[in-house]
């Protein structure tokens, strides 16, 4: 099941989950890495030092009463490469001030890894973002780095991947890579904090009272490591890959204990992350001005929530997900992308909250104008099951090579589901970014 659809299909328990307490915005670590990045004694290193980064500021206002801010944040990203002949180091950090979601503010230690590259193999060790898959804006095989849904769909998909601590080794061939990953520490997805504009909305009858525990996560131990492998082939006319991942579900399962008292019911929820085995495949195939892309994933034994909010029953089922997409670049700076995704629960039970099939389509159109200084684009997500839609349109103008400004609209249609729940969050937004 794609993370994007899974997360909303099961949102009946998500509204209580807080930002993860082990989120690595640890001030002490941030100070250390900040000092390292800024004060590294470059003269002592026989290597090239390349600092880079950006500042961006993003603000979104609700189009309906009370016209409040749905997002308001400013970020400084510092990045640095230190490059030797065969080994190199990369480090990056964020300093964020978020006016709407204070828990998002702070210094964030983002990535820090070392590369060693030989002729036939390479190693990457440290905190890193790992991206698999061929889809845009959908995570079917892209499940190594968990996602940050703090602002749900309103944040650029490129910004929502969270780094993980990992050791990655690859065997390198001319037309193929074989990749092995060891993730010693589990990291869960981050969900929208309760009380914020992007918190998941879920209405329970007044007769149901709820209590929630913090999610139970796997202990820090070797046996709780995650392991992954992938073989990728880059052949003439087609790329394809097969992959497997022995992991933990990034999203906790809501185990419930129900107690009836007079005319009310108390539902005590104690969420827990469970082991999950994943097998996936992906391909990408160009033809003239088109590229056909596809992904498929099999999830062995995933937990699904019951439709009845008072039920203690959980459903452990195998699930399949698939995506087929088409990119078309007809020239004259036009670009069009369409995707269709389906999540399928095997051995389905009607008591499961999610539908047996959950179908989603996406459509992206973009056009560049004025010597490619102005980019107009529109991305639409369409949920077929609930008849819902999220449309995000933008105009980005390059004032200079370094500074870009953007304005846009985010519109939600529908009453229910992953996008329809935000029908009151239609927004107009602006963004400015300076890269250095």
């Amino acid at each position: 099941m794609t993370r994007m659809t899974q997360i909303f299909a099961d949102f009946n328990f998500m509204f209580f989950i807080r930002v993860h307490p082990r989120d690595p915005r640890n001030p002490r670590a941030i100070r250390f890495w900040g000092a390292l990045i800024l004060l590294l004694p470059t003269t002592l290193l026989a290597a090239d030092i390349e600092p880079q980064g950006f500042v961006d500021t993003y603000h979104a206002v609700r189009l309906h009463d009370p016209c409040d801010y749905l997002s308001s944040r400013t970020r400084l990203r510092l990045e640095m490469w230190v490059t030797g002949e065969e080994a190199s180091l990369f480090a990056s950090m964020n300093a964020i001030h978020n006016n709407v979601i204070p828990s998002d503010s702070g210094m964030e230690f983002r990535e820090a890894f070392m590369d060693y590259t030989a002729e036939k193999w390479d190693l990457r060790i440290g905190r890193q973002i790992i991206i698999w898959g061929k889809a845009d804006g959908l995570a079917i095989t892209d499940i190594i780095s968990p996602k940050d849904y703090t602002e749900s769909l309103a944040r650029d998909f490129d910004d929502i991947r969270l780094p993980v601590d990992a050791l990655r080794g690859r065997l390198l061939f001319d037309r193929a890579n074989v990749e092995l990953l060891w993730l010693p520490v589990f990291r869960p997805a981050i969900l929208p904090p309760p009380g914020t504009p992007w918190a998941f909305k879920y209405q329970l009858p007044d007769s149901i009272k709820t209590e929630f525990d913090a999610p139970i996560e796997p202990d820090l131990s070797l046996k709780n490591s995650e392991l992954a492998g992938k073989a990728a082939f880059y052949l003439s006319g087609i790329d394809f890959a097969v992959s497997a991942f022995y992991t933990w579900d990034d999203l906790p399962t809501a185990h419930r204990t129900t107690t009836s008292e007079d005319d009310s019911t108390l539902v005590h929820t104690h969420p827990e992350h469970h082991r999950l085995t994943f097998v996936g495949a992906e391909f990408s195939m160009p033809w003239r001005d088109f590229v056909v892309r596809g992904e498929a994933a099999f999830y062995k034994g995933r937990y699904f929530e019951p439709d009845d909010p008072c039920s203690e029953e959980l459903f452990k089922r195998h699930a399949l997900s698939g995506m087929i997409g088409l990119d078309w670049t007809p020239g004259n700076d036009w670009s069009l992308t369409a995707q269709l995704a389906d999540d399928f629960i095997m051995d389905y039970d009607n008591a499961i909250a999610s539908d047996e099939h959950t179908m989603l389509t996406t459509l992206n159109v973009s056009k560049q104008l004025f010597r490619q200084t102005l980019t107009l684009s529109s991305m639409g997500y369409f949920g077929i099951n609930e008849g819902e839609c999220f449309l995000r349109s933008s105009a980005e103008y390059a004032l200079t090579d370094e500074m870009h400004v953007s304005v846009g609209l985010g519109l939600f249609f529908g009453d229910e589901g992953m996008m329809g729940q935000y029908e009151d969050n239609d927004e107009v937004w602006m963004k400015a970014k300076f890269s250095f």
Partner: protein
Amino acid sequence: MARKIVLLCLTFLLMTSGFIGPACAQSAELTGRDIALKVYDRPDGDDQRGIMHMTLINRRGRTRERTLLSFSKEYGKDSKSLMFFQSPADVKGTGFLQYDYDDPDQEDDRWLYLPALKKVRRISGSSKNDYFMGTDFTYDDMGNRAVEEDHHKLLREEEVDSLKCWVLESTPKDEDYMYSRTVRWIRQDALLPVKVEFYDRHGNLLKALTIPDIRKQDGFWAMFRMEMDNLQEKHKTILEIEEIHYNVGLKDNLFRVSTLERGRIK
């Protein structure tokens, strides 16, 4: 971005090099097609490494800059190319890998790496009529247009800056092509153009390319500076080769998707 990067490495190779060959045959014995073939087939080394800088100047004098690091290697009639953007900052680290096949029935393989996405994408063949990264050069302008796509006519011989040139007119067989004709002044010693005029579909002069700096490098002729004036849009692009080296012994493992995925190159 994907649309903007295709073909660049290969064209970089083609546009900057020319073999220092023996003196050319007399034009009286040559047809226009013969000259076009000589230019297209000129040897240019087994591999090359270079740095290219582009300056875009609009009608108000405002400038934008792009810098590219490029590697190319030939495998018989096929070739492999790799490039990374070094500037501007918003595209720094963007990389492109291409396997170019001589067989017209085999589509070239192309991959693009976008550092913001940290992901390599397979991309399709870009429209050769699109302008590259906001410059005044289309992909076809930059060198790899097949000889058979045009009719070629030798107009005359004349001297440009005391250098003997063939004046070659090429008319596209495809009537929908963006130019109705091009006229090239080709240096007979270097087999490289010193001046090119591009005419739009209505027969009006659209762009003028001048190449004031052609020099030998590592035994090959190379174009070190090109100035493309878009006369209709009052926009100009200056393309300078900051560094170019031929036959440097590039390793085969440089031209892998895994190199792109690292997002950089030493």
